[in-house]
């Protein structure tokens, strides 16, 4: 218990040092830039100015405060990324399952999956929009495309990593193919599946924001590129930057949390260490 609490407090110390370090560097940068006369005043505002802008009750566009604008657009982006992520995770899992069951499918499909991953997301966005003819749908599809690949490859690796002896045990018990997947393969690939989810969750959100910047239709990225153009809305820009980072990190931890809820043995492992 003692060493455990020591370890925890040292972890906290590391986090604390990091945060302090980032604040220091930011503030030094902001001060230097504020003092160079030529730059526009607000390019790199002080942190307290950004925090203040969050609580500023003045309307920016006549009906909403800066923070209200950010939050409502974050909702749009999150919803698209979230739906896309769920669809992508589902497709990724099913693809892994099919590829594992049928070897020829794996051999034919895998190169295509890799090619899809190679296409830059900014190049894919107009194509997807042309196909779906709908801003919302296209963003969802983009998020799904980015999600399914890490999920599929990791889950497939999980299926393949099941020990030979575990298969022999199922064989000796005359288990059916369905039972082997249900009782052995799927539960045993869960840590890999969640690794895939942890990689793709922040990616789905980042991609959603990125694609927003290209095409209109609201969302964080859309606001991001608009707000950058005017000195009066620069705080919206910085609020979005920070919020996006928080959402990305949050999505990762959300996946870890869900994993711990579905895999109680991992909790037991943690508690023991």
């Amino acid at each position, binding site marked *: 218990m003692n060493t455990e609490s020591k370890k925890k407090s040292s972890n906290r110390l590391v986090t604390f040092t990091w945060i302090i370090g980032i604040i220091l560097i930011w503030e030094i940068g902001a001060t230097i830039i504020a003092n160079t006369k030529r730059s526009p005043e607000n390019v790199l505002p002080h942190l307290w100015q950004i925090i203040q802008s969050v609580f500023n009750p003045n309307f920016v566009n006549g009906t909403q405060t800066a923070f209200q604008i950010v939050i409502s657009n974050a909702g749009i982006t999150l919803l698209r990324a979230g739906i896309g992520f769920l669809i992508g995770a589902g497709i990724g899992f099913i693809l892994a399952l099919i590829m594992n069951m049928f070897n020829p499918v794996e051999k034919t499909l895998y190169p295509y999956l890799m090619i899809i991953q190679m296409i830059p997301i900014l190049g894919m966005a107009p194509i997807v929009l042309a196909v779906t003819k709908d801003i919302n749908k296209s963003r969802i599809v983009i998020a799904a495309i980015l999600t399914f690949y890490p999920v599929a490859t990791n889950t497939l690796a999980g299926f393949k990593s099941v020990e030979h*002896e575990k298969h022999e045990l199922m064989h*000796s018990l005359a288990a059916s193919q369905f039972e082997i997947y249900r*009782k052995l393969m799927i539960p*045993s690939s869960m840590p890999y599946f969640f690794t895939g989810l942890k990689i793709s969750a922040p990616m789905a959100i980042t991609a959603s924001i990125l694609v927003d910047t290209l095409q209109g239709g609201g969302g964080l990225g859309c606001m991001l590129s608009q707000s950058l153009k005017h000195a009066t809305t620069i705080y919206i820009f910085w609020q979005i930057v920070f919020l996006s980072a928080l959402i990305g990190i949050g999505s990762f931890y959300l996946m870890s949390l869900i994993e711990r809820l579905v895999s109680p*043995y991992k909790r037991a*492992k943690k508690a*023991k260490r």
Partner: protein
Amino acid sequence: MTSLEKIDNEFQERDYSIQQEAEIEIKIENVSVQFPDNNGGEPVTALQNVNLEIRQGEFISLLGPSGCGKTTLIRAIADLQPITTGKISVRGLSPKEIRLQKKYGIVFQSPVLYDWRTVRRNVCMPMELMGMPKKDRTARVTKMLELVGLMEFGNHYPHELSGGMQQRVGIARALAIRPEILLMDEPFSALDEFTKEKLHEDLLRIWRKTNKTIIFVTHNIQEAVFLSDRVVVLSPHPGRVSAVVDIDIPRPRTLEMKESVEFNALVSKVRNSFEGV
């Protein structure tokens, strides 16, 4: 009869007197196993012309150094390894038919536990495959954990247990479906000497209570002699049976018997029957 009574009936003490006249359960006739050489050379002969009869309720050990084919033989009986020539029949049926009837319990060298399942649910798993009702499963799991002495650890996860305890869970799981034949492939070879001796005593106690046929693969002479009714000595290159030694030490056996003159004479007898090692 309720399910619990059925389980209790399973644990009637063994009567040693009948055992000698017990019927032949497994018949191995002229069995050879060859593995194709990957480099296109001559196939490797893992087993050559093995003949063996195993009686119902017998504790038989397959003993030999690595490469003697002892694991190949037990895997052939378990229908995990196809044989090249010869015939294996178990109660008049093929190993595959016996496997499909779920009459085999297998304990591997490593415990092969599912780390996402608790001890209880690991033991339960084969019964789920048999489609046994939940109530019966729970009762049987409790009984099995009692049998291997892990009652307090039912809700632990495998990684929280020691190696010896994990292997006990493996034994409980193998016995849970009430197999006719228990196949054990070097189950204790990864354990320390103290744990091993404890498990030897436990295994003999379980065997006495359950009246299973046990085929036990090992490379440890003392272990084979202490546990078995008969020790099948296999020699390598090519794998073949070089002797079958009857172990007539009285049962129930205790650890003190390992120091007896009788025991050590049998150990030397077994040791001397190896060929070409």
